[in-house]
């Protein structure tokens, strides 16, 4: 074994999620069994990505890989680093407190209006969890699980 390039690219969670789901579906269709160690890690990883508050726990899925270039374009004016963009894609911060957890020195770099604008972009492109049932009228049975 020889590593040619330690880091050839970075993948966001939604890309890995779609890749593993497609692979599982393909294997099922071809009645093909993957090696046991792959089946284990694939199942565990999909479980992780589908547990709340991971955005991929939402049904229907709130976004797919097509959202990546849209988000990058909309965030361009804010000079957010690549790593921060990846975290925004993965964790989908829909409040200022959650945005603070993924941006370095948020308060030093962005005033309150800019912070709110970034959160608004995240909600517009990646969606958000529906409000808790007690605030909703009508179908109170909907949960965010």
């Amino acid at each position, binding site marked *: 074994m020889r590593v040619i390039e330690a880091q050839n690219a970075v993948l*966001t969670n939604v890309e890995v999620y779609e890749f593993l789901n497609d692979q599982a579906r393909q294997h099922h269709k071809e009645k093909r069994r993957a090696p046991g160690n792959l089946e284990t890690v694939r199942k565990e990883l999909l479980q992780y990505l589908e547990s709340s*508050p991971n955005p991929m726990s939402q049904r229907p899925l709130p976004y797919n890989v097509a959202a990546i270039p849209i988000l990058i374009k909309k965030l361009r004016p804010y000079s957010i680093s690549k*790593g921060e963009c990846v975290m925004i894609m993965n964790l989908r911060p829909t409040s200022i407190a959650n945005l603070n957890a993924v941006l370095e020195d948020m308060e030093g770099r962005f005033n309150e209006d800019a912070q709110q604008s970034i959160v608004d972009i995240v909600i517009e492109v990646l969606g958000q969890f529906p409000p808790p049932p007690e605030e909703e009228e009508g179908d109170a049975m909907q949960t965010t699980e």
Partner: protein
Amino acid sequence: MFILTKIADLVQIPPSQFEQHSRIAIENNINAKYSNRVIQKIGLCICMFDLLWASEGLIGHGTGLVNVNVEFRMIVFRPFKGETLFGRISSSTPEGLNIRTEFFEDIFVPYKELPESTEFDHNEQSWIWVLEDDERMHYDKNEMVRFQVIDEVWNDQMPETVEDEDMENAKKVSPYSIQGTMMKEGLGVCLWWD
């Protein structure tokens, strides 16, 4: 959280797999070797992403194995320093919080990386963040948390000798573990911020 790593290797396909398409036989052999295993200083391998190149197969003398040189890209779990991730509290000790995810268990947040005025409750065996108005916020077992990666520790599991005892001891240390912090607004138990 995930990267692609480019790797070159030699795949050996036994005659029992000759009925498979070579593309599938190669992929299965790569995944059987790498999936769910740690490569030192690279990360936890998930599965092959794509096959970039494969040589002609050469049959080895005496064994009947087909040898194929391959280059491929692997999906690898390797969060970068400063990255924030979701995890779940698996246990608390006076030293800090143990965090796990479904597929990776070795994450630790030392007590000095918890917010100030956090204290350990020996009766409940859990950490509690005491706010100014004396409100007590618990770091309960199984709670989902956000934490930020501050360091990583690599341990080559190579035993010092081939004695059984050394072999067992080598397996006990984790090949790859992550240290995290929760010392920032927005980190810690998810429910506090949602």
